[in-house]
């Protein structure tokens, strides 16, 4: 079996194409083991043929297994569904079916995912086949695509029994912008770099780091250790900022306005530091291919120490009050619980997995150079309810702060850093994969080049693709009025899912 490490590139020829039965049994055998999970599964079209790739991360051996099979031109566009045996693959098979019309026999619901313009399945976005139950006792509630707050569009359909939700189904795709196609159409690396920043504007650092690692590996271009560390530093700042904002947002929904205001202010302090570093509060323009335009100077280092000191004091004071409030505990405890078993079946990643006792953290299991040098010890909680997510965010903030302090105290940052390089030459006929632990969880980018070294396929996976299912299950048998706190406790990405 072909095993590679994170951020490795291999020749396409080295990936053996198995026949489907062998592919099927190998995938089932691998994914039945606890330490393995699927990080990406997609079909790469070559004229009228399709080469399938699946990447399975092995958390124990810290590597990634790549398996492949091919559907030839004369083959029937039908395959036995893997979802029957391994549920977490449901969304990947749906995507392949939607894009290329390849049917998966035995899949429970081959519904559209994001309605791209060149899709094979021409279902209209208004005709989504929602699950329904016929009963005089039940009613349906539809919400969206446009929501009441300032957030992105998505449609939520609840089937309710009185106040209680029996079933929730989420229909996405409204945000589809054709990102993966644009990666191929834009020939300039800087344009692609900026495109990566716009995959999800709240995970700029996460997605851009995965992008840079994918292409640098594909070009066999080594960047300095310091650059890796600066990117990781930005990644942790992004984690602190968004988690703080999320804690504040959850306070809003529990009608605790002091908490909402103070956590909101604290988030501002962190993103304003990111602005002082690169000129943009979200870190756009900070991560660049092959180098950086914004070295982490001595002044910035000192400023960050100050910002963290002030942040930490205020954060701890506020958290001490907030997390002990009975009104908060009452509102969040035992609401929207996900069991470890459910989290594993769905293939949940990131914080949503770690709060349900499933350790999924690329920083620990598949670390890049930065996290090999300065390891993290992930937060894992057992209860799986809204409170667990609320607490996990707080603890992850603390871990990130101490990780940053450790880095600042022990690493000698040089004042100059290599400049970006937008003329990287990609190796022809290669496959590259990169995993990066964004604040939501595992981001995966894959790229394939043709015989001239041009990109012919680019695949982006945001952690939300796995995790939307968790939100659906969280709502089972809870009151519909608990939807907002559940939704905010996950804070999943619409545009990251729709691409």
């Amino acid at each position, binding site marked *: 079996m072909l095993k590679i490490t994170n951020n490795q590139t291999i020749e396409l020829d080295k990936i053996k194409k198995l026949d489907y039965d062998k592919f099927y049994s190998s995938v089932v055998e691998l994914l039945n083991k606890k330490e393995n999970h699927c990080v990406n599964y997609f079909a790469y079209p070559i004229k009228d043929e399709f080469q399938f790739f699946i990447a399975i991360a092995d958390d124990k051996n810290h590597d990634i297994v790549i398996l492949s099979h091919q559907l030839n031109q004369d083959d029937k566009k039908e395959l036995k569904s893997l979802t029957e045996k391994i549920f977490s693959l449901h969304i990947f098979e749906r995507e392949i079916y939607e894009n290329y019309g390849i049917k998966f026999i035995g899949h429970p619901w081959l519904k559209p995912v994001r309605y791209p313009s060149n899709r094979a399945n021409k279902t209209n976005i208004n005709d989504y086949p929602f699950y329904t139950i016929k009963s005089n006792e039940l009613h349906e509630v539809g919400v969206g695509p446009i929501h009441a707050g300032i957030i992105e569009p998505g449609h939520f359909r609840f089937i309710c029994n009185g106040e209680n939700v029996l079933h929730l189904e989420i229909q996405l795709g*409204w945000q589809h912008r054709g990102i993966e196609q*644009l990666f191929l159409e834009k020939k300039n690396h800087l344009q692609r770099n900026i495109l990566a920043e*716009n995959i999800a504007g709240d995970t700029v650092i996460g997605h851009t780091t995965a992008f840079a690692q994918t292409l640098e590996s594909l070009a066999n271009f080594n960047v300095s250790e310091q650059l890796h560390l600066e990117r990781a530093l930005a990644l942790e700042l992004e984690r602190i900022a968004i988690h703080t904002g999320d804690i504040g947002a959850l306070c809003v929904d529990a009608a605790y306005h*002091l908490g909402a*205001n103070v956590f*909101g*202010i604290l988030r501002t302090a962190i993103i304003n530091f990111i602005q002082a570093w690169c000129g943009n509060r979200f870190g756009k323009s900070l991560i660049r291919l092959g180098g950086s335009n914004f070295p982490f100077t001595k002044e910035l280092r000192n400023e960050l120490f100050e910002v963290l000191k002030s942040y930490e004091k205020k954060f701890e004071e506020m958290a001490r009050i907030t997390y002990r409030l009975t009104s908060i505990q009452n509102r969040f405890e035992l609401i929207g619980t996900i069991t470890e078993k459910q989290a594993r079946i769905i293939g949940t990643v990131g914080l949503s997995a770690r709060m349900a006792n499933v350790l999924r953290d690329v920083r620990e299991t598949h670390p890049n150079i930065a996290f090999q040098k300065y390891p993290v010890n992930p937060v894992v909680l057992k209860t799986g309810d809204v409170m667990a997510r609320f607490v996990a965010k707080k603890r992850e903030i603390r871990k990130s702060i101490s990780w940053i302090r450790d880095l600042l105290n022990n690493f000698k940052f040089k004042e100059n850093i290599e400049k970006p390089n937008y003329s990287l030459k990609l190796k022809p006929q290669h496959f590259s994969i990169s995993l990066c632990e964004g604040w939501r969880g595992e981001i995966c980018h894959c790229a394939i080049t043709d015989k001239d070294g041009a990109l012919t396929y680019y695949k982006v996976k945001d952690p939300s693709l796995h995790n939307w299912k968790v939100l659906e299950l969280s709502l089972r048998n809870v009151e519909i009025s608990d939807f907002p706190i559940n939704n905010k406790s996950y804070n999943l990405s619409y545009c990251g899912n729709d691409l």
Partner: protein
Amino acid sequence: MIKEPKLMMLNGRQYIPDLKNVKLKPPFRGRPEISKAKVDELVLVKTCPLGAISSNPVSIDLGKCAFCGECSFVFPDKIKFTQDYRIASNKRENLIIREGEDSEVKFDENLINKDIRRVFAKSLKLRQVSAGGDNSCEVELGACGNANFDMNRYGIEFTASPRHADGIVLTGPITENMQEPLRIAYDATPEPKIFILCGVDAISGGLFTESKAIDRSILNEIKIDLFIPGNPSHPLTIINAILDLTRG
């Protein structure tokens, strides 16, 4: 109970009293200045990943600019980004900065409907619609209401329904899939109403202009009252833009 007041003391005064004159520091990139220095204009035009730069005379279209700063890294003598964040206008052409011109981005008072100032100056309720926005402009619009920027002090708020709104704030390049919901929200907003484009994606489509998944045709039928540049737009830019439109 004593804990809460103590905590509020610890955090101190957080709101920015004067939103019009905040001193932002470099490397924040606001309105660019283009000098008369001689450079290879063809190379300069090609440097911009979003095609925001034109030549003869050299100009930058803020409606297409992602503020990545690349032009100023390659041609530091030619292009400098100032920290002026008041870069919005109600006229699309006013977003174009030309070489040798060192002046603020202006509003065209003649284009402002009298009803806007009369009705919305002291109370403005807005509906936000994201149509392919990447959630950065959306988060910044949310930040406008936080304790730092406190837009609510001017009576500007976001509502949960277009029926209660005086206008729509659009973010994102307008995906084909969001065309219809956007139209419904716009039609449901009562007159008089304003329509605001927030962020580079909304104003020009940004990097997504040529994507097949984007359909911007609805903009041909709607009168646009305000263009707010940025990627994403800074809360200071957003609030000042709305105040300049509704109060002057």
